């Protein structure tokens, strides 16, 4: 058990290191910070404008920085990660297969599960670092305003879970191909599909509609932004992640047999 954790840790640290040794991590951080900053400023301006109008206009609408600023902002962050995370996960397995380093991992006394968990946690750690950058923006809100911090925490938790789903999906797809571009593109398309799958719900029957709505990966995110941590949604995300990792395990194992 202890060895297993050490192994997972060794692989995770190696993954994280290689993200930061190559431009990947830095470029991601820069892009993410830039886009998030853009949204932040836009929403802030809008919020300030509305508040000013509220002061001069008649009946002031209920102004709530959490609902009107933080929530949509986190919603936008989730769109950004839809684009960014496939770029993180596309190399996880593909690159090791292409360069032959996978041979080192597979002939070391590591189980497939340890390798996969290490890679997964390494990517999640990078993603957490991306999210951490955005917290600097949020800090401004606390300096100049008075937002509630609980919805903020639940929002970030939601983002972390949502992103982890993309990572587990991306890991699986990367484990099926040597080609990074294919892995990245396929991950993006599948993630996007999961994103918009509930659009079909409108025209379909009640059962299909509810199934589609349940599958939609964004539908489950909404409550987190409101500050509600619903077990239902947590279960959805955790099952999604586990299923992705399980598929990766199967894919790596079958690859072994096929050579």
């Amino acid at each position, binding site marked *: 058990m*202890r*060895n297993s954790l*050490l*192994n997972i840790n*060794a*692989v995770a640290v*190696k993954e994280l*290191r*290689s993200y930061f*040794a*190559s431009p990947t991590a830095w470029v991601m951080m820069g892009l993410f910070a830039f886009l998030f900053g853009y949204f932040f400023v836009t929403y802030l301006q809008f919020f300030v404008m509305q508040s000013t109008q509220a002061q001069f206009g008649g009946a002031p609408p209920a102004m709530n920085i959490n609902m009107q600023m933080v929530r949509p902002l986190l919603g936008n962050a989730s769109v950004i990660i839809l684009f960014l995370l496939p770029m993180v996960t596309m190399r996880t397995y593909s690159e090791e297969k292409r*360069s*032959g*380093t*996978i*041979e*080192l*991992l*597979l*002939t*070391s*006394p*590591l*189980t497939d599960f340890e390798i996969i968990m290490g890679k997964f946690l390494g990517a999640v750690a990078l993603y957490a670092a991306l999210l951490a950058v955005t917290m600097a923006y949020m800090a401004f809100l606390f300096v100049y305003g008075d937002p509630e911090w609980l919805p903020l925490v639940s929002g970030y938790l939601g983002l972390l879970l949502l992103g982890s789903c993309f990572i587990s999906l991306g890991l699986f797809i990367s484990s099926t191909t040597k080609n990074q571009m294919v892995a990245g593109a396929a991950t993006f398309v599948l993630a996007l599909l999961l994103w918009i799958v509930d659009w079909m719900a409108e025209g379909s029957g009640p059962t299909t509609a509810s199934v589609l709505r349940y599958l939609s990966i964004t539908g489950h995110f909404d409550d987190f932004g409101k500050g509600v941590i619903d077990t239902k949604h947590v279960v959805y995300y955790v099952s999604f992640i586990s299923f992705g990792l399980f598929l990766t395990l199967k894919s790596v194992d079958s690859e*072994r*047999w*096929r*050579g």
Partner: protein
Amino acid sequence: MIEVQHLTKRYGPLTAVDDVSFRVEKGEILGFLGPNGAGKTTTMRVLTGYMPATEGRAVVAGFDLFTHPIEAKRRIGYLPETPPLYPDMTVREYLAFVARIKTPGLSAADRVMRVAHVMKRARTDDVADRHCGKLSKGYRQRVGLAQALIHDPEVLILDEPTAGLDPKQIIETRDLIRSLAGDHTIVLSTHILPEVAQTCQRVVIINKGRVVAVDTPDNLTHQLEGAATLYVLVEGGEAAEALGSVPGIQHVSTMERHGTAVAYEIEAEPHRDVRRDVARAIVDRGWGLLELRPLRLSLEEIFLQLTTEESEGASANAGPPPQPVLPAEPGAAGVPGA
């Protein structure tokens, strides 16, 4: 130390390794010889637990690779055909990472010591802080070797350890490998024959996925000799007739002229030493005997013979007598086989 029994590996309809069996004793260096595509890498990949066999089993250091892969892998150091390096890590970082995954629970101090030790052993000290991606081919290979040694494994499996090295590096690498035998059991694959003659105690020749011969390099050369063939260089006269009259000689052919000297190839009855009589026959006539030596088959010729034979599974003993055409010098040039 290593036992392979009836190993078969198929990729779909293609049979890469077909019913291969062999044993390697503790401390031995076994050479795995075969043309490209003969199934060397596949066999090694099964031996290292990279992929499972379709049929048969492989046991390393007492652990079956299929049922106890982790235990077995702890005892194996493996250098794949392309050294598995992470380009963005420095050599030191890379070796520390490998140490981590090969022996979890090693203290940081021990790890630093192991890394320093293998870097010294594989002569990679001077590139310790260079990025793996920036290394020359020779250094990449050495770092790959260092990586295989990091956990002081009982068994070392080296897939073409000298491929792509310059002659000096090849000699150094062979010396290193030889110095590792005894403490480690080594299996190395190559398609370069002199390498086997120089480093290995035993050879497995594999072709099209099947084992065609298992023996020591010397025995292989001897067994395939069949009829004893001599090379004689005579100065002073036409010696063909005189040589033909020596008892025990079956056939004499004139090969070439070197100025006043003539070279002959003599076939004697098997297992009969005719050298004394041949020498006397020439000297008695007052001619000069410039050279007299047995024509031995080089490993190259044995190899070609074994791997081009049509009859499948022909053992080393059953081969027809060789027809050497040139004076062979075992271990002369690094001619890649097939």
